[in-house]
C-alpha cells in the first residue's frame, strides 16, 4: 500500500509541477493571443467567453500589527510552491518602494500572483489617503479586500475606519482573515467572528455571509502544515476564487465607443475608428455621435475589424465603423459613438479629485471654487471649472475630496471615467467621475459667470 502511495505522490507532483513551472505565464498569454486572433478571423460574436485567466484586484486592510504583510508574504510563499507566484519576503513588502504612477507618489506595495483560476494583483496600502489616491489615479481599482484581524486583539477601534474606507472606494466583497488563531482557543475565535459579523453588518455588508477564515500567517510562512498553517492560506485563496465573482466584460449594456480617429473613404463615406468600451455593436444599428455640444443621429452601415467586414463587434474590439450620411467635418476626436438614445450630453458632473502636492509637481497654492483650467480625459480636452462643496473653504495640494465640474461644452462622461486637470502644461489634479448631473447654462461661453445650484 505504501508503495502505491509513493507512486501516487510521485505521479501527482510530476504532473502538477513540471509543466506548470515551465509554462506559467508566457504560454498562457500566448494561448489567449492565439484564441483571440482566430476568433476574430471567423466572427467575433460566436465566442464571447474567452478562455483567458481572469484578473482580479485585491487588497489587504487592517491594523498595523495584525499581520497584513505576513499574510501577503505567506500567500506568495504557498503559491510559489505550486509555481504560481514568486515568493516575496516580509522585508521586501515592508520596504515597498514608493511607486511613481502618473506623477503621483503612491505609497503602496503591489504584488502579483495566480491561483489555478485567476490572476490577482495584490495591493497593500499603509493608509487611508494612499488607498484613495490609488483609486483616483486609477493605479488599481480594488474588486475585493481581505480584512485582517488578529484573534488575540479582536477588532480594534479603528477597524470601523477600515470598513468605512472599503465602502468609500466601492469594495463590494470583503473576506475576513482571523490571524494568529493559534494563540487563542475556539471560544475566542467565535467571539471575534461574531464581533466582525456585527461590525460588517453595521457598514452595510451582509455580515452573515461574509466568509471568515481562521489561520496563522506566521505559521504558514514557516511551512507549518497543521490546521492554522498552510491549509488556512489555501482555504483563503480558494475562498477568494469562489466568493469574488469573475469580472466579465460588459456586453449587455448599449454599446459605447470613444472615437480615436476618423477619415473619409471616397465613394463610401466617413469611417470612425476606436475601441468599443462596452456592449455589442451591430451592423445597421441606430447610433448617436455625441460630444462637444453636438448630437448627430446616424446609422452604422458597416463594421470592420482588421479590414474584414463583420456583422457585429464586441467590447474590447478595435473597429472601423462606416457611418451613414456623416460629414467628416462634424466628427471630432474625442466624440463618442453610442447606441441611439442610450447616453445623454451634459456639462455638469460630480467627481472625486486629488490635487498633487508640490513634490509631485502640483500646485503650491490652495484651490478655491471657480478654479478654471483645461481638463483632459480619453482622447479629448476641454475647459473646465471646478467648484468645491459649499461647506469646504479650500483644498490644499495633497488633499482629496468631492468637487463639481462644469465643462465649457456638453460631453458624455460615464461614472468611473478618469480625467486629469492641467495648469500651464503641468498636471495639478487627477480624478474620476462619480455622478452625472443635469446640464447647466454657461452664459456667453464664460465659465466664470456660471451660477451653481447645490441641491443637497
Amino acid at each position: 500500500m505504501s508503495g502505491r502511495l509513493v507512486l501516487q505522490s510521485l505521479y501527482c507532483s510530476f504532473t502538477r509541477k513540471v509543466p506548470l513551472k515551465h509554462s506559467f505565464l508566457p504560454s498562457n498569454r500566448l494561448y489567449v493571443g492565439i484564441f483571440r486572433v482566430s476568433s476574430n478571423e471567423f466572427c467575433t460574436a460566436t465566442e464571447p467567453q474567452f478562455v483567458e485567466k481572469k484578473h482580479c484586484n485585491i487588497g489587504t486592510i487592517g491594523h498595523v500589527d495584525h499581520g497584513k504583510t505576513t499574510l501577503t508574504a505567506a500567500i506568495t510563499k504557498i503559491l510559489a510552491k505550486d509555481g504560481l507566484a514568486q515568493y516575496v519576503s516580509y522585508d521586501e513588502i515592508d520596504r515597498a518602494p514608493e511607486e511613481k504612477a502618473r506623477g503621483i507618489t503612491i505609497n503602496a506595495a503591489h504584488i502579483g500572483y495566480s491561483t489555478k483560476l485567476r490572476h490577482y494583483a495584490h495591493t497593500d496600502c499603509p493608509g487611508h489617503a494612499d488607498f484613495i489616491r490609488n483609486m483616483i489615479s486609477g493605479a488599481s481599482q480594488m474588486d475585493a479586500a481581505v480584512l485582517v484581524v488578529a484573534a488575540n486583539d479582536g477588532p480594534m477601534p479603528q477597524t470601523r475606519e477600515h470598513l468605512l474606507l472599503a465602502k468609500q472606494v466601492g469594495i463590494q466583497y470583503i473576506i475576513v482573515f482571523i490571524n494568529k488563531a493559534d494563540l487563542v482557543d475556539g471560544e475566542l475565535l467565535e467571539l471575534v467572528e461574531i464581533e466582525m459579523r456585527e461590525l460588517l453588518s453595521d457598514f452595510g455588508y451582509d455580515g452573515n455571509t461574509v466568509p471568515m477564515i481562521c489561520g496563522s500567517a506566521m505559521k504558514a510562512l514557516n511551512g507549518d502544515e497543521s490546521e492554522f498553517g498552510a491549509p488556512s492560506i489555501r482555504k483563503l485563496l480558494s475562498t477568494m476564487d469562489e466568493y469574488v465573482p469573475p469580472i466579465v466584460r460588459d456586453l449587455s449594456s448599449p454599446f459605447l465607443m470613444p472615437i480615436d480617429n476618423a477619415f473619409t473613404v471616397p465613394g463610401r463615406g466617413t469611417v470612425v475608428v476606436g475601441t468599443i468600451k462596452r456592449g455589442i455593436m451591430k451592423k445597421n444599428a441606430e447610433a448617436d455621435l455625441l460630444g462637444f455640444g453636438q448630437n448627430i443621429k446616424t446609422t452604422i452601415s458597416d463594421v470592420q475589424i482588421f479590414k474584414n467586414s463583420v456583422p457585429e463587434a464586441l467590447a474590447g474590439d478595435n473597429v472601423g465603423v462606416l457611418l451613414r450620411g456623416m460629414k467628416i467635418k462634424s466628427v471630432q476626436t474625442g466624440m463618442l459613438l453610442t447606441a441611439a438614445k442610450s447616453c445623454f450630453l451634459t456639462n455638469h458632473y460630480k467627481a472625486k479629485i486629488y490635487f498633487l502636492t508640490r513634490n509631485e509637481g502640483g500646485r503650491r497654492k490652495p484651490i478655491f471654487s471657480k478654479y478654471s483650467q483645461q481638463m483632459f480625459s480619453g482622447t479629448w480636452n476641454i475647459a473646465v471649472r471646478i467648484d468645491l462643496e459649499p461647506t469646504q473653504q479650500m483644498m490644499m495640494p495633497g488633499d482629496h475630496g468631492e468637487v463639481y465640474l462644469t465643462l465649457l461644452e456638453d460631453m458624455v462622461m460615464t461614472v468611473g471615467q478618469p480625467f486629469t486637470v492641467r495648469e500651464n502644461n503641468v498636471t495639478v489634479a487627477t480624478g474620476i467621475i462619480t455622478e452625472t448631473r443635469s446640464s447647466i447654462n454657461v452664459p456667453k461661453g464664460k465659465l466664470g459667470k456660471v451660477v451653481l445650484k447645490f441641491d443637497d
Partner: protein
Amino acid sequence: MKLTVQTYSKMIFQLVRRFHAGPVCRAAESSLLAKLRKKTGYTIANCKKALEMHNNDADKAESWLNDQAQAMGWAKATKLAGRTALQGLVAVKFDKEHGALVELNCETDFVAKNEKFLKMIEDATLACFKFAHTHMQAKGPVTKMELDSEQLANLATQSGKKLSEELALFIGTVGENAVLRRAECWKANNKDVKITGYTHPAPATPADYSAGKYGALLAYKQPNDTEDVGRQLCQHIVGMGPRKIGNKETDKPAKDTDDETCLIFQEYLLDPSYTVEEVLAKHKVEVIDYIRFSCGEVIEANMPGVEKQPLDTVQTLQ
C-alpha cells in the same frame, strides 16, 4: 486511511469537549465575554484573562481591567515608542486673548479619523488652552510658549490626569504608537491684541475649536470700526505657509510671486489682485505674530534649519 483517522479524532475531540463544557455553559461564558468586551473595548485576550481571574464576575473583571489599563497602556507605549508616527492632526482652540495649537501624531491616518483619537487631541488642546489661562506671565504684547513632547506630557487634563497617562491609555486601546509632538500656548497681554486660529479642513461653521491637517494661530491688532479679517488672514497663513512676516524696509519681494515667502508681499489668498500688505493697510491690521503647524512636518524635516519667529517674546518653562 489518514483521512478517516483525522475525522474520527476530530469527532472524539468534539465529543470530549462537549462533555467538558456543555453548550449552554459555554454560550453563557461567551456572552459574558462579549458583553465585557463591548462595554470596555479592551482586547479579547485581556477580557478573557480578567474573567478567568475573577471566576466570571463581570463587575470585578471590569474594575480589574480598568486598574490594569494604565499599566498595560504604559507597557504598550514603551513597546511601540520607537515607531515612526507621521500621520495625525493639528488642533486649535482660541478665544480673544488666548490660543492653543497642538499636534498629535499617530502611525496611520485610519487612527487619526477615529473618535478616540479626536477625543485625545481635544483633551490635549483643552489642557494647553487652560495652561495658557493660568500659567502664563505677562511680558510684551503676546506671551508665547512652545511646548515639546515632554512638557506636554506633564500637563494635566480637566479630569486631573496627566496627558502622558491619557496618551498611554489611548495607545493601549488602539495598539498604535502616538506622540504628542508639540504645542504652542499664547496669551495676549493687551486689550488691543486679538488672537485667532484656523485649521484646514475647516469646520462648516466657524468655531473656537477645530482640528485638521494644518493649523495656525495669529495675533493681530485691529481697531473695532473696521471689518475683522483675522480669520481670513489666518486662512491665508494656513494656505500659503509664509516663512516670516517680512519687513518692508529690509526685505525685498521675490521676483516670482509664486515663490514669495514673506507674508506681507504674498498675493492675498482670497483675492489675488491684492497683496497681503494692501489688505492689512485697508483694514488697518497690524500682524504681531503667527505660528503655523503642518501635520508631520517636524519628522519629515528632521528639524534642521527650521526658520523660527524672533524669539525675544518667548517665555520658557524654567
